């Protein structure tokens, strides 16, 4: 069943950076005090995004929000006038939510496909600070009609059909008579035929309309977001089992879709998850020096089995994607290729080990949450004697998290600063600073090397922004952190219910 749903997901390509989850969460600072930004994207284009800003310790005089489209110059033959801040509409003022402390909200239309920078400007004491939040504007679903809307529209349709047929009938029967007494039985008889013919005509119109609707929907489906095509292989060079990921997407190979840029120091973040959700590897494939579209990583010492693959990448355009695939990791599927060189293992690669010196404790956790609940993600790292231990930075972060539902249709990659791509954010920050300084920037963005560990964890504690999950089901959460040079991967379980 899981595999079926996973494959269904591949067929429909309802994949984005994070899968089955349209919310972007960012936790950072404005005026040196913590703020949280939640952006709920609509899943259609053009569509209305919901932006919520929460500040914990301060009031702002004003908060402005602007959606800025980010495209590579001359993409699809379009000029670049509409891209970047020069093509952005006037900023919206965020409105405080009544009854909620220090919480403001705004709704913004996302009119175009692709990468957007939601620029939020905070004003306080005649000073301002800007935070750029990268999001993807994509169509990834067709919202079904609610039952009440269906019933109302159906009844109105019946009324309109009956009314139209009757109008045509009486129009034929009575409308040209000066005196209604002139109405003869022959005309009345004929009017029944007219009514019958009018119903056939209306049915034909409805049939035509339905076909047209199907064609429109088919065109829309073609526009549903599709992540880059990829193929995976497992090879062995006598010493190592190597996972190869080949990007086979023609648009990417031809350069119509921009290349990847590193996100917090890695060109790819790959999660390998076995079908029983017992093993999770967080790996970082590197680009092959021989083939541009080939990425390779050493498979750690894990058991054989069927594994789901989720690969997070950020593009130069500022958008980010989660690619997905499956491998059957069995000896019979491993090809011997002795000419493959020995691959250096990335020190930041991690997986669940049988024995660990430390573990994470989920603070104030619950086994079950409702779909609208905020799930607090606060953890403490302890040693085997339950003594707190100091957490060290792990890939420029305090920690990493992954949430997957039991059907494999929801995948969320979370960090202490939220679910956004840090590389995209740095790209927009750089663009904003360059705009401000009026320096022309011709180069490509460099790798994301910013250290995001500041304040994201303290001593033995590790905090992620709370998350809201809309889809009921059983969920698995993996938290990763580092202490005394040992990377710990800890699994948790919880349920989302709809009550």
């Amino acid at each position, binding site marked *: 069943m899981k595999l079926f749903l996973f494959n269904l997901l591949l067929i429909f390509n309802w994949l984005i950076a994070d899968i089955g989850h349209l919310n972007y969460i960012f936790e950072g600072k404005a005026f040196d005090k913590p703020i949280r930004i939640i952006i709920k994207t609509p899943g259609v*284009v053009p569509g209305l995004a919901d932006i919520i800003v929460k500040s914990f310790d301060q009031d702002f005089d004003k908060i402005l929000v602007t959606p800025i489209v980010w495209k590579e110059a001359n993409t699809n033959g379009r000029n670049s006038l509409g891209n970047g801040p020069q093509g952005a509409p*006037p900023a919206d003022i965020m409105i405080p939510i009544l009854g909620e402390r220090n919480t403001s909200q705004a709704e913004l239309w996302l009119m175009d496909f692709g990468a957007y920078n939601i620029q939020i400007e905070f004003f306080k004491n005649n000073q301002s600070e800007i935070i750029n939040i990268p999001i993807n504007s994509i169509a990834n679903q067709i919202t079904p009609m609610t039952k009440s809307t269906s019933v109302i529209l159906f009844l109105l349709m019946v009324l309109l059909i009956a009314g139209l047929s009757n109008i045509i009938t009486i129009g034929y029967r009575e409308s040209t008579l000066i005196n209604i007494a002139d109405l003869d039985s022959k005309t009345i008889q004929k009017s029944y035929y007219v009514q019958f013919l009018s119903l056939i005509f209306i049915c034909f119109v409805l049939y035509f309309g339905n076909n047209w609707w199907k064609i429109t929907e088919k065109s829309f489906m073609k526009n549903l977001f599709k992540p880059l095509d990829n193929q995976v292989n497992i090879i062995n060079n006598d010493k190592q089992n190597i996972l190869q990921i080949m990007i086979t997407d023609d648009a990417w190979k031809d350069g119509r879709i921009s290349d990847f840029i590193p996100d917090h120091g890695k060109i790819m973040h790959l999660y390998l998850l076995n079908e029983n959700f017992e093993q999770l590897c967080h790996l970082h494939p590197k680009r092959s020096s021989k083939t541009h579209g080939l990425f390779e990583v050493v498979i750690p010492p894990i058991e054989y089995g069927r594994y789901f693959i989720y690969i997070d990448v950020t593009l130069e355009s500022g958008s980010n994607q989660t690619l997905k695939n499956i491998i059957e990791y069995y000896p019979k599927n491993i090809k011997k290729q002795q000419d493959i060189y020995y691959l250096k293992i990335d020190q930041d690669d991690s997986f669940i080990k049988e024995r660990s010196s430390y573990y994470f404790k989920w603070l104030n956790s619950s086994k079950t949450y409702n779909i609208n609940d905020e799930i607090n993600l606060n953890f403490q790292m302890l040693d085997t004697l339950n003594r707190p231990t100091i957490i060290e930075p792990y890939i420029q972060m305090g920690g990493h998290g992954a949430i997957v539902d039991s059907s494999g249709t929801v995948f969320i990659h979370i960090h202490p600063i939220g679910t956004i791509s840090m590389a995209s954010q740095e790209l927009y920050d750089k663009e904003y600073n360059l705009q401000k300084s009026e320096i022309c920037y011709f180069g490509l963005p460099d790798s994301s090397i910013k250290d995001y560990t500041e304040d994201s964890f303290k001593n033995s504690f590790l905090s992620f922004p709370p998350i809201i999950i809309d889809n009921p089901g059983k969920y698995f959460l993996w938290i990763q952190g580092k202490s005394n040079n040992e990377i710990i991967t800890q699994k948790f379980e919880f349920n989302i219910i709809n009550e």
Partner: protein
Amino acid sequence: MKLAKQVPLYYYLILLASTAIVIGIQWDISWHSTIGRDKLLSPPHLVVYIGGIICGLICTFIVFKNTFFNKIKEGVKFWGFNAPLACWICIWGMIAMLTSAPFDDWWHNAYGLDVQIISPPHIVLAMGIFSVILGSCILILTSKNLNPTNFIYDILYVYASSLILVQFSIILTEYSFANKQHSYEFYKVSSILYPFVLVAFKIPSKYKYAATYIALLYMIHRMLIVWILPLFPAEPLLGPIYRDITSYVAPYFPVLLFIPALFIDVLYPKIESLNTLQKSSILGIVFCIVFFIIQWFFSIFLLSEYAKNWFFASGNNIPYFIPQGGFDGMFFKYDITPYGEKIVLGEMNIINFFKICSFSISSIFISFYLSSWLKNIKR
């Protein structure tokens, strides 16, 4: 003046409401092209819906008056109620317009905001609006047929007919930009709809030049919109913004329908005695020849520098979301759907010209049957 007073006040009100609906639609299209940000109760939507509701309520009033208070039943019987047929058409239109609102709202959430003018919920709305305007027109026509000596009804009828023509021209917006007026698709849809309205609504009128008047009123209406809307400042509130826009974007300049309409008016008395197919064939071919020649060259003018002024509004009628590119001022060879699909536009050649002639003839043939019914409508 005495004759004008004989016309019930609500006839003027219903025509005013119909005019508001048509202006509201054009304002809404300009709103989408200029400001972009849309909501259910935006000012243009309010104008359209209030216009529709006024027409519907006036007709509902007539229904109650006729059913419960008039001793002589002047209307047709509909599910136990009695009122002129036109009122039922108007009420049906109002219900269709109100139906389109939740349908369109869901459509936006499912497929995105108004990515194209011609979508299923918009067609339901267009059918509703068409019914309301048609109902208003037929209400006046019914009184005109019953009071042939009151010329006020004739004037009001010609005006109401021109509103129907305006509405058809709005439906054809996506085909009728000057850049598309060398395409087969433009001539195909134009040759079907325009002669249909001109012929069907000309014949019940007592004026010899009724088609020309209808076409002229249509053009004046459209030109006033082209000239007035850009006087109001507005700016895009949605991105990406590809054009520097500071006032409302004008609609496309109307097609020069009064010329083929004049040909119809002059020819019709001469061929009136022929059978319907013969009349349709002559009028259809003449319409196509005249319309094709006029619009072919007029569109070249509209794309030239000479038309970039307030009068013709070329260059001032492109929405903020259309990227500036090499196709400005050029005839399009292909169209791109809102979903990114490329559709090659047909070229006008002799075969396609014969095709549009046959469409036009068929359309006029049907319009004769409609016109003979309109001419005789009494209740």
